[in-house]
Structures are given as structure tokens and as C-alpha cells.
């Protein structure tokens, strides 16, 4: 089953809409709460990343009996050095973004922690695609 959500860059008040919707769906499917939490936390981080860094993005969620695959595609600056970005505490967020309580450099590490497979493809100046797979019975 597929669901899609659009994310607006710079609009922090709407960050978390996709993760809330996905949570509602997974609850209805009787998925165990631990798996729901992992999916929701990882997706929320991904949403905040798009809002904080990109112009816009789209979330595609595919739900199957095995688990959830989330693809987050954005149009934005891209990530020049992915291994560096994966380090805890590393952040390129602007002071304005940090003032709002985001940009602590925990986004990508948190996403990695909360999914079973994470892959990031990025082209500087174009955008980033993050793919996260979470299995229900991991």
C-alpha cells in the first residue's frame, strides 16, 4: 500500500505531518508499538531535514506485511560529504534553525538507529534521496 506526502521547505510548523499520518495508518494495521515508534521517529527526522535544508520534498511510503519502506526525495542543496553528515553532532543548520530547537546534528544518526536499512544518495546543488527500510519483526 502506498502513500505520498509533500513537504514544504522552511515551514517548520508543518514538519511532522507525514510521520503523524503514517503513525495513524500503522496503528490501524495493528503493527506493534515498538516498530511504529521506530518508523515514526525516523520519518520525523527525515521530514525535519527537508524542512530545514531543502526547498521542497516528497515522502513516499510503501507498507507491506514485512515492513515499511520510506523514500524521501528533496530538491535542495544536497550533501557534499555523506559520511561526515552521518556523524553525531555534525550539522550545517543555520543559527535561525538552531534557535527553533532543530539542527543538533542528530537527524541522520537517529534515522540510522531507527531503521534497518538506510541509504542516502545526493547530488550537490540538486537534492537528496533518503531510503529507509524498517522491518516489523526485526
Amino acid at each position: 500500500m502506498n502513500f505520498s506526502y509533500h513537504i514544504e521547505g522552511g515551514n517548520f510548523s508543518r514538519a511532522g505531518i507525514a510521520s503523524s499520518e503514517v503513525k495513524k495508518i500503522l496503528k490501524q494495521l495493528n503493527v506493534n508499538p515498538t516498530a511504529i515508534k521506530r518508523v515514526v521517529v525516523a520519518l520525523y527526522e527525515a521530514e525535519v531535514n527537508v524542512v530545514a535544508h531543502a526547498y521542497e520534498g516528497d515522502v513516499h511510503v510503501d507498507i507491506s506485511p514485512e515492513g515499511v519502506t520510506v523514500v524521501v526525495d528533496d530538491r535542495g542543496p544536497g550533501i557534499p560529504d555523506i559520511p561526515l553528515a552521518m556523524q553525531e553532532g555534525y550539522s550545517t543548520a543555520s543559527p535561525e534553525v538552531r534557535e527553533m530547537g532543530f539542527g543538533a546534528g542528530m537527524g541522520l544518526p537517529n534515522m540510522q538507529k531507527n531503521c534497518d536499512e538506510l541509504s542516502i544518495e545526493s547530488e550537490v546543488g540538486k537534492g537528496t534521496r533518503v531510503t529507509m527500510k524498517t522491518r516489523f519483526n526485526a
Partner: protein
Amino acid sequence: METFYHALKVAPGTCIGCTHCMSLCPTRAIRVVRGMAVIDKNACVDCGMCLKSCPRQAIYVAQDDFNQIFQYKYRVVILPTVLFGQFAEEVTEDQIFAELHDMGFTHVIEAAQAYGVLAKATRRYMQKHAYLRPFISAFCPAIVRLIQVRFPALLEHILPLKQGMDLAAIYARRKFTAEGVAPGDIGIFYVTPCAAKIAAIKSPVGEDRSDVDGVINLDFLYNKIQLGLSRHRDNPLPPVPEQTYLSPDAIAWTLSEGEASNFEGRCLAIDGIHNVSDILEKIENDELLDIDYLELRACSHSCPGGTLTVNNRFLTIERLRKRMQGVTDNPRTCPNDIAGDEEYLIANGRLHEEIPPRSIDQLDENFVTAMQKMEKINRIMEVLPRIDCGACGTPSCHTLARDVVQGKAKLSQCVFMQKLLCRESLMTAEESMELSEQTWGEKRFEQ
């Protein structure tokens, strides 16, 4: 599935199925069938939003017969703090105590007497189980039930502690038993400001039976006291030297911030059940970290806004604040004996059982079946108008789609669908009328 006791009832002759309650219910537990609101027992959390929203007073709170108190020799009444807030300032606490004795109670205890003990028990539990942060207070039974049905993943954060009413009851029973009174002679009654506390006594969560024997609705008792006060106006009752010293903190406990202000760390106080749902969503998503304690109350302004209160809640709060001030200016000397039983109460104040989840969100136990049902719901949503008018007898188009998939409703209940079917000659005007009668009752169309 086991059924749950609910005190909220719909009066058949009075309810016209106006849908006010249906659209406000935080768990979407209400449908209109044959012109009357019907509450789903598995989804209802006893918050009382339906009662507050009803323009016809068709929703009421069932209560025990008052005369049951006379089955007991020791008739103990436990009072919520907000009781005093119901009265005008010239009515003194002494007068209220005297009236309670006059109507038949032998002992009066305020639930607030136990809050010092509860605060201590809470602190100890939090210290020992720090890994379970954020702690959620079990104070409001409607919130505990809301978490059971809508946020089962957060159940482990609820403090498994008995509340003031139960602690006061344990204290009273222990005290009189120690004095040699036969347990069967002791009857303990709680005066409730809301429907949720009644449900908590009739079908408690986390314990097999409540420590309280019966419930008296606050509005009923208020009338009884008022009646007594006017009867004794020219001939005042002698005062009963029973009032114990209550600290301002104890009096404030049932007000918003009354719990949260007692504890260290980041403590939030949220009132209003829809506000509470918003916060619980955030907690569940890990959007809010570093919270230590959550005081969550279903009613706006907490207990002063209870479903069975009589006075305006702002005036209730004003009166209670004055009482707090009065305690500071002029402390009573009669000691609070409950504090003496502190260790016993802390040891016996834990909930015995786990709080079980009662999720109402899942479409099916089986994932694949649930997914098929969800796909059907999504298909149905494409043809529904999405205006959530309520004319089908469910609170929203999505709820109708869900009910259809669960076999609880027909898609043709939707008036838009009926119009479409009539236009395509797939439904006659009579059939459409019949469907409307099923939702709104035959009487509705009788003019």
C-alpha cells in the same frame, strides 16, 4: 471482549440526535441511530465531553441510591476539594461539614488529606524507575482510559499509584477496623465531580476492586446541602470539630498545575482532553523529549470544570484560592491523621495489576486483513464528500467509511450517496426516506 462500566447515559425521550456530542467525542465513540445518540462502550473513556456539549441535557450521569449509605453503621464520605468551590463565600466549611453529618454521614474526610502521601509516593516511584520517564499521572481516570484506547504504547509511563480518593478510603477502613469495627459495618462513599471517577470506582483499571464502596454525584449532594442550609438558616447546626489541617499545596492538587508544581524537573500541566491528545501524540512521536512529569486532566481547568460541578469553574477556582489563603493566614490545629499512616499507605497504594491496552484504532488483528480493510476505506473515501456533516449518523466521512468496512454501517447512509443513487435511478425516494429514518428516527419526518 469484556465490557466496561460507564456512568454516562443517554435519555431516550430527550435526545434528538442533534450530533453535538458526536462531533466532539475525542474517541469517536458516538453514533446516531434512530434519532438517538448511542455510545460505544469499548471506545468511551468517560470524559463527559458529550454531557457538556448536549444542548438538551439528554446525557446524564447514573448514580447509586443515596439511601444505600444507611446499610452501614460507619458512613464515611470522602470529599473532592472542588465541593467547597461550589458554594458562595458566605457558606463556611464548618456549615458544610455539619450538613453532611446531618444528612447521615458519621465521618467526613477530604481526599486532599492524602495528597501529601501521594506526592511522596510519586517522588519515590519516579526515583526508582527513572528509565520510565516521562511519567504520566494516573490522577484523571478519563486520561488513563484515553491512553488505553488511543495511546497504548504510552501505558508503561503511567504512574501505577492509587489516587487521593483511594488512599483516603484505605486510611479510613484501616482506622475503623483497628478500633474494632466490623469491616461489613464500614461504608465509604466518594462524592464525584465527574463521570470518570465513577467509572474508576465501578470498573477500576489496574486493580480488581476499588477501595470505595459507592459514589454520590456532586450535583446531587450540592442540592442536598443547599436544602439543609436553607432549612437550618434560623437554627444553625452545631459545628462538627472534624476539619483537619490542609496545606495550600493539598488544596491546590486538583487545580491545574496542582500536581506538576510538586515535582522536580520539566513538569507540564495540560487540561482539556483534546489538548491532552495533542500532547500525547507528540510524546508518542518522540517530538517532545526531556519531559519528567505530565499532569493531564480531561476537563478544562481540571476538576473545577468537572461534568457534575454546579458552579462556574472560574468562581470555583477563586473560592479554592481563597481557602488556600485562609489556611496560610489562619492555620487549623487539628492534625491530619492520614500523614501518620504514610508508610502503610505508600506500601498499599500501588496498583496491583498492569493497565491493559484496549486499542480502538486497529482495523483487524491480522495485518493482511487490516490492510485490505484500509484499502477499502481509501476507495470509499474517494466517493464520499469529505464534509463531515454527520447526516449519516457518524462523526465524519472517514468514520462512516470505517464503519462500512467493519460491517457496522451502510455506505448509502450518506445523503450525498443517496442523491447520486436517486439521480441514477438506482434508489427510489421511498428507499432514501427509509434510510434517513434509520438514522434519524421515524418521528423526525412526521410533520
